[in-house]
């Protein structure tokens, strides 16, 4: 991000473009919680924080992040929140009420929706929240716009005094494209907080007044949407068909029309300011075309509103999209999928178009696993052994993080994974329902800070006899190793107080707490057995720093890494594959029916040597 290179295009990733856009807009306070595909935005801004005088933080969860940014925006400075779609659920409590008070400095919530999904528990469309909260929504169509429109979003936010939802999807976040940069603005608004309790204290009488104000602001927003330059028609002369496309799907539509040679037969209405919609513009587009295909990610939100506009107008235009199956109902769109929709509307039955319907060849899937030497794999091994020793079927409730790869074969170690912190509360529910046997909630350190503390307090308060296993690897690993309150560093890499998980757990009222290293297999099994036999909520903290991050940092510090070298004795290895199937370590290979160790990936954790029934794996002297 060299400012001297202005006007010369550079190769820019979408998330870095958004970060750059925030710098160009003069953002002052940035807060977020890591989540794919959003994480690089805040990491990038954290790297610029000192140079440009910003406050950038990883907050404990998205609601906290939103409230931090919202507080800053009340003080008149520009503030940015970054989150993935699921985090919008978490922050929505604050978002919906903050729309009533409004803001002073611009407040932009960047939500990166993993719509397919590639790395999430669901595929949700956060644009519903813009409608629910009654706030504007902007959806850029490519990387350049992802940068440029951040400034627009801040201006809209300040003009309307409303938070703005800046909605992007994976194919913008992790896309790379040529892009030109603008000048960075230093934040120059002096912060000031002016008491105004009729506006900021949301007791019911004030809320009744403010909802009228809010509805009025959204009427003004409709006029802004109508005049937004990137809500525009690209008309094909005498086209009978039109495509209405928002966000990333606009570029898919253009690509599909180019590939199919249909640019001159189909008009396109490009939408980027999508809440409220430019109703007059849409009405004119409907009047001008006999058939309209609506493409959007990922729910038929615009399609429903277009249907409603058509109904009000009484036009005969046929409207197609996800609702009538012209566009597939689920999963992300691609140029192919948009193209198929276009050809169906135009009734084109050209055999040369068959090529566009290729499916991905049906091949062996490459199922992601835990890394070589991952302490979570060792924790899962110990957990399964401890459950066997205690007896009874029980359940293992899982949570969100790297460790949900433990659901994949060969580990198949967890029974549930729903949302941040749910492992502990769901375990309580299973116990209260009367399920017998050990019930164990497995949760990572960052997830515990995010939303695991309240469920633990609840388990103590309501005497749920469960075991909680906190997999403490010191980092928020899954999303790219961001620091959390347990890391001892803040987002900008400076030392931060370390919040002790043991003390926190004890302060929640848990009396039985054990700390183990999962690399010591027998010790971990014994601790889990003792915890399962304890007749109250009890906690095992399985602590081992994430080796991937640990090795990265040590290498960066100039250390030459060397690992304990384990070898398999081929005379003793019976080829039973117990190690491969019970630990699932990717450093275990097979040759001629015997296990071998891949020394390019093995980090010498020694777990396989501890579990081998033939004692065939040992340290090479």
């Amino acid at each position, binding site marked *: 991000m060299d400012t001297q290179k202005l006007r010369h*295009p*550079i*190769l820019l990733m979408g998330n870095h473009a958004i970060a750059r856009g925030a710098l160009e807009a003069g953002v002052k306070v940035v807060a977020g919680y890591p989540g*794919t595909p959003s994480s690089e935005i805040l990491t990038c801004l954290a790297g610029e924080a000192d140079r440009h005088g910003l406050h950038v933080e990883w907050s404990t969860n998205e609601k906290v992040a939103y409230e931090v940014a919202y507080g800053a925006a009340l003080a008149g400075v520009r503030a940015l929140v970054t989150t993935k779609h699921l985090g919008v659920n978490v922050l929505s409590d604050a978002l919906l009420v903050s729309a009533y008070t409004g803001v002073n400095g611009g407040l932009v919530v960047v939500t990166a929706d993993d719509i397919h999904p*590639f*790395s999430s528990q669901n595929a949700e469309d956060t644009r519903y929240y813009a409608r629910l909260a009654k706030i504007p929504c902007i959806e850029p169509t*490519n990387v350049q716009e992802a940068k440029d429109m951040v400034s627009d979003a801040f201006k809209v936010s300040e003009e309307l005094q409303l938070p703005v939802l800046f909605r992007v999807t994976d*194919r*913008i976040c*992790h*896309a*790379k*494209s*040529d892009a030109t940069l603008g000048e960075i603005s230093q934040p120059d608004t002096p912060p000031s907080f002016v008491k105004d309790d009729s506006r900021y204290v949301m007791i019911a009488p004030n809320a009744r007044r403010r909802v009228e104000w809010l509805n009025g602001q959204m009427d003004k927003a409709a006029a802004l949407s109508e005049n937004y330059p990137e809500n525009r028609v690209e008309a094909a002369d005498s086209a009978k068909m039109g495509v209405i496309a928002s966000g*990333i799907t606009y*570029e*898919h539509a*253009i*690509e*599909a029309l*180019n*590939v199919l040679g249909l640019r001159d037969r189909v008009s396109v209405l490009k939408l980027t300011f999508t809440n409220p919609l430019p109703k007059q513009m849409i009405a004119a587009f409907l009047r001008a075309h006999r058939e309209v295909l609506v493409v959007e990610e990922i729910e038929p939100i615009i399609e429903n509103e277009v249907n409603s506009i058509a109904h009000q107008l009484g036009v005969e235009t046929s409207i197609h999209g996800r609702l009538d199956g012209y566009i597939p109902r689920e999963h992300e769109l*691609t*140029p*192919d999928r948009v*193209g198929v929709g276009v050809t169906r509307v135009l009734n084109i039955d050209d055999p040369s178009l068959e*090529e*566009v*319907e*290729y*499916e*991905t*060849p049906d*091949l*062996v*899937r*490459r*199922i*992601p*696993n*835990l*890394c070589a030497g991952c302490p979570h794999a060792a924790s899962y091994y110990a957990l399964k052994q401890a459950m066997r020793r205690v007896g009874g079927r029980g359940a293992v409730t899982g949570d969100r993080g*790297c460790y949900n*790869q433990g659901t994949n*074969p*060969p580990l198949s170690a967890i029974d549930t994974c729903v949302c941040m912190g749910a492992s502990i509360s769901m375990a309580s529910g299973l116990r209260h329902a009367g399920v017998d046997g050990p019930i164990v909630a497995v949760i990572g350190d960052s997830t515990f800070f995010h939303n695991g503390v309240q469920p633990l307090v609840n388990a103590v308060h309501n005497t749920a006899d469960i075991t909680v296993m906190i997999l403490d690897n010191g980092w928020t690993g899954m999303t*790219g190793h961001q620091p959390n309150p347990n890391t001892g560093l803040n987002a900008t890499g400076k030392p931060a107080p370390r919040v002790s998980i043991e003390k926190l757990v004890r302060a929640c009222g848990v009396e039985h707490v054990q700390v183990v290293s999962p690399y010591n297999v027998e010790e971990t099994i014994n601790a889990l057995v003792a915890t399962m036999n304890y007749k109250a909520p009890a906690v095992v903290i399985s602590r081992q720093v994430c080796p*991937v991050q640990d090795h990265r940092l040590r290498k960066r510090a100039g250390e030459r890494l060397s690992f304990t070298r384990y070898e398999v004795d081929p005379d003793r290895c019976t080829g039973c*594959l117990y190690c*491969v*199937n019970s630990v*699932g370590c*990717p450093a*275990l*290979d*097979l040759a001629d029916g015997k296990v071998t160790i891949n020394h390019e990936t093995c980090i010498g954790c020694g777990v396989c040597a501890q579990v081998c029934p033939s004692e065939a794996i040992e340290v090479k002297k």
Partner: protein
Amino acid sequence: MVSAGTMIAEAALAEGLRIRSSDATGLAQRGGSVHSQIKIGDEVSSAILHSGTADVVLGFEPLEASRWAHMLKRGGVAIVNSNPVYPVTVKNGMLRYPGIEEQKRVFDERGARSIWLDGRALTEKLGNMRVLNSLMIGFTAAKTRIPIGLDTLRRIIAEKVPSRTVEVNLKAFDMGFKEGCEGP
């Protein structure tokens, strides 16, 4: 580590071309499937390729290369590193890894050509297994008509790889290019 896709995109940018590309690289560490899609040209739209439109598939692993065969246009070229990386489910016998003839057929059936090279054997000659990217880019430059000059590719490789590995990476690029010119 800069991906081969990013190096090609940077080189195309240096040639004054426009870029749309899309990466799914997060699961490499965990043994998952990763890929990048790149469009380069005077006018480009959408970070996702339309199937049947790719000129080149650059496959660093056979199974992963054939996974994207449907993106190739008729007459397109797949450059495939022939060294397999077996998924855990293959290692423990749950699934069968397809044979090389089976994988070649995937490309043949699309009317595309596949050119295979033994990247491990070649990089071993250089004493460094981590220069496969540069080797594959050099090979691709010889075998396909990507609109990027050799000098630009070399310059971008030199800029993007760690400084102490510039020399060996350029050697790998040249070796790949030479291999590509000599082979069938």
